[in-house]
């Protein structure tokens, strides 16, 4: 039944119909009618952030930790441009998001009106799709189509730009219940013939490895379940990208740890020496492949991906399977079962033994200290003291992010929120706000760097306003550590602008926000202080002073192959990367 209402009311009604409970936003002239409609509704809770970038990252955290779509509402002009970083972040990490932006009234578009910007123009290349709504008649369809596009297939951000006159206009609203689209038709089922061939290849493999990624998390719990089942059925070792952590449990026996630039030695060596690589929902990113022409030279490669353009983009594979990895894995399980019930653990014994030898290198080891807190130690303690709780981790970007990936272990999906593709400093704090909104009683920790966290620190105020007890655990090395490490590797240790000569007193800063501040610089006090952080029912800024010039290892230096990793005992890392490697990032 169509109902008459204003465009602004349609926005809220569509959110209700989409079962959206929370949106993150910031008001302004061009969205006042929508804010008025929010004021008069009691179904959708609006979380007022302090900066529109914060809204986008909060929505990302919310989405990644729930599997639902994150929703953002911002005004025209500066509201929209401030959202661009988060939209791009969501695009690169395949996060479902709908971002509603206000626009100047249609008759004024193109006249350089107050707070006008070409939002659809600016966001065209950083969204999966975007819309400018020119008439209220189109609004119901566009609102619902946006959710369909954002959440189906390979998820991503969608912008709906709504001019103010359209928000005031009266029109008929009915939920069109969109479950397909005339031109956009993601392929869910994988081709059966291809899956059969994949199973045959797997049955013959002698040195197999599962290389899994964010697509498994995108696909949802069924994919995680089937992946674990497939791993158990085959007995094959499993590694994952940064984006896929938690899909296969870190305490599983077949777990190799993360792969890639800062992945474990065993994961990268297994990738390099395998004879069969089964890539599930990962995109052969350059952090994974290292030198393309030396990438896993002797393997056959199967690639399961819902996005046909991910296939053969960086690495040409032998067997592409386009489809949702949940469906495809389920089918694989069925076909495998039809052939055998015994895992191939026996047949691949030499391979597993080889892997154990690589494991014995203990590539994540580091020198312990009684006097200073080692960053790796801090993460280890944080993990040990929180692992039995309902814990969600977000991160900023830098060394601390990699240490978190290496030393915090994830046994479940959707527990790890990090900016992988864009690498956005300032992601973690607002993301933790979003996560905590979705999981009020959980322990939500942002593992942060002192530089990154200052980029979106203002969202502490949001956390205080809504009583969200997020824990910001800052590994404070006073350096933009990741930048410093690269300067050591590539630029003769000339630390140009990577040291923060001035840092705020984070404890006082916490107090100024009305949050709780903790400082710790003594390894002997660390456990107690972490417990203090966990137990206090308030947002916390934890200033954990760690070794200043620690390097994040192991590492595949730029321009090198998987088997050329820098291990923790490699001396003189300043001489490893050649001229060709230097130009890479």
């Amino acid at each position, binding site marked *: 039944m169509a109902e008459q209402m204003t465009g602004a009311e349609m926005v809220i009604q569509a959110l209700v119909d989409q079962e959206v409970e929370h949106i993150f936003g910031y008001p302004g002239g061009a969205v006042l009618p929508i804010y008025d409609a929010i004021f008069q509704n009691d179904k959708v809770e609006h979380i007022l952030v302090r900066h529109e970038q914060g809204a986008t990252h909060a929505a990302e955290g919310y989405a990644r930790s729930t599997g639902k779509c994150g929703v953002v509402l911002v005004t025209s002009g500066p509201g929209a441009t401030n959202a661009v970083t988060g939209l791009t972040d969501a695009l690169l990490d395949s996060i479902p998001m709908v971002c509603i932006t206000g626009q100047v009234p249609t008759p004024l578009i193109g006249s350089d009106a107050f707070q006008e910007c070409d939002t659809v123009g600016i966001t*065209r290349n950083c969204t999966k799709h975007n819309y400018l709504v020119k008439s209220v008649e189109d609004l119901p369809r566009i609102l619902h189509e946006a959710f369909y596009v954002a959440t189906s297939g390979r998820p991503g951000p969608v912008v709906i730009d709504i001019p103010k006159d359209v928000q005031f206009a009266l029109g008929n609203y009915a939920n069109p219940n969109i479950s397909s689209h005339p031109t956009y038709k993601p392929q869910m089922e994988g081709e059966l013939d*291809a899956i059969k061939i994949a199973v045959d290849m797997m049955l013959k493999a002698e040195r197999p490895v599962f290389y899994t990624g964010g697509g498994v998390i995108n696909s949802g719990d069924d994919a995680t379940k089937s992946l674990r089942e497939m791993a158990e059925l085959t007995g094959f070792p499993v590694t994952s990208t940064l984006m896929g952590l938690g899909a296969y449990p870190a305490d599983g026996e077949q777990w190799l740890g993360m792969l890639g630039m800062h992945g474990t030695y065993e994961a990268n060596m297994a990738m390099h020496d395998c004879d069969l690589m089964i890539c599930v929902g990962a995109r052969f990113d350059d952090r994974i492949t290292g030198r393309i022409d030396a990438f896993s030279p002797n393997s056959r490669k199967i690639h399961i991906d819902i996005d046909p*353009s991910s296939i053969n983009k960086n690495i040409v594979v032998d067997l592409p399977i386009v489809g949702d990895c949940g469906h495809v894995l389920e089918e694989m399980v069925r076909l495998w079962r039809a052939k055998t019930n015994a895992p191939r653990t026996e047949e691949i014994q030499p391979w597993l033994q080889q892997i154990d030898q690589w494991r014995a290198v203990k590539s994540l080891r580091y020198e312990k200290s009684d006097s200073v807190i080692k960053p790796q130690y801090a993460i280890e303690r944080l993990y040990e003291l929180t692992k039995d709780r309902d814990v969600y981790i977000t991160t900023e970007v830098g060394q601390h992010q990699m240490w978190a990936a290496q030393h915090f272990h994830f046994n479940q999906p959707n527990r790890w929120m990090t900016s992988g593709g864009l690498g956005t400093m300032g992601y973690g704090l607002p993301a933790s706000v979003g996560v905590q909104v979705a999981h009020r009683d959980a322990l939500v920790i942002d593992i942060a760097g002192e530089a990154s966290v200052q980029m979106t620190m203002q969202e502490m105020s949001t956390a205080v306003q809504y009583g969200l007890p997020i824990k910001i655990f800052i590994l404070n090395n006073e350096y933009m550590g990741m930048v410093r490490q690269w300067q050591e590797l590539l630029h003769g240790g000339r630390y140009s602008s990577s040291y923060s000569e001035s840092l705020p007193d984070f404890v006082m800063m916490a107090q100024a926000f009305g949050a709780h501040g903790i400082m710790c610089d003594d390894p002997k006090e660390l456990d107690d202080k972490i417990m203090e952080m966990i137990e206090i029912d308030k947002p916390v800024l934890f200033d954990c002073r760690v070794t200043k010039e620690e390097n994040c290892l192991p590492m595949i230096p730029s321009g090198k192959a998987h088997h050329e990793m820098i291990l923790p005992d490699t001396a003189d890392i300043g001489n490893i990367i050649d001229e060709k490697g230097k130009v890479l990032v």
Partner: protein
Amino acid sequence: MFKPSWDLERSQSVERHTLTVLVDNEPGVLARVVGLFSARGFNIDSLTVSETEHDRHRSRITIVTVATPKVLSQIKLQLERLIPVHRVHDLTAEGESLERELALIKVAGKGENRVETLRLAEAFRANVVDASIDSFVFEITGRPSKVEQFISLMQPLGLVEVVRTGLTAISRGKEGM
């Protein structure tokens, strides 16, 4: 049927391909297509676009691009990812297709040159669409190579100006897109 893709790396050398893209004729669709080419560093040699099915709001975009086989396949897949894109066909890869271009060519000259210009125009089946005592404008349609050739012949005879529509193309045979 699934296709193994080893052959993609068969060649590092670039090929010229004509793609035809069926899109919903909605605002911004051309910007999406062009933006994709610039954002991903693909080449556009020629681009034509026009509405072809008015009732269904559909347009056809014909793009000529030059790339390696691997990049060509990315271009096609990336185009298909755009939401308003219905279908993309690589006409060059799919067998024979008809390719045409229209050019308007202004030539100025007198005496012998003028006679020669007209003689060549006739040979190339170029129509005179404007004439004055010391100039012609010709309209020529054909494969780009033919248009090219005609233009180069006009060069010494007083070529003033050329405008070209860019290439448009359709597959042979009874199958439609």
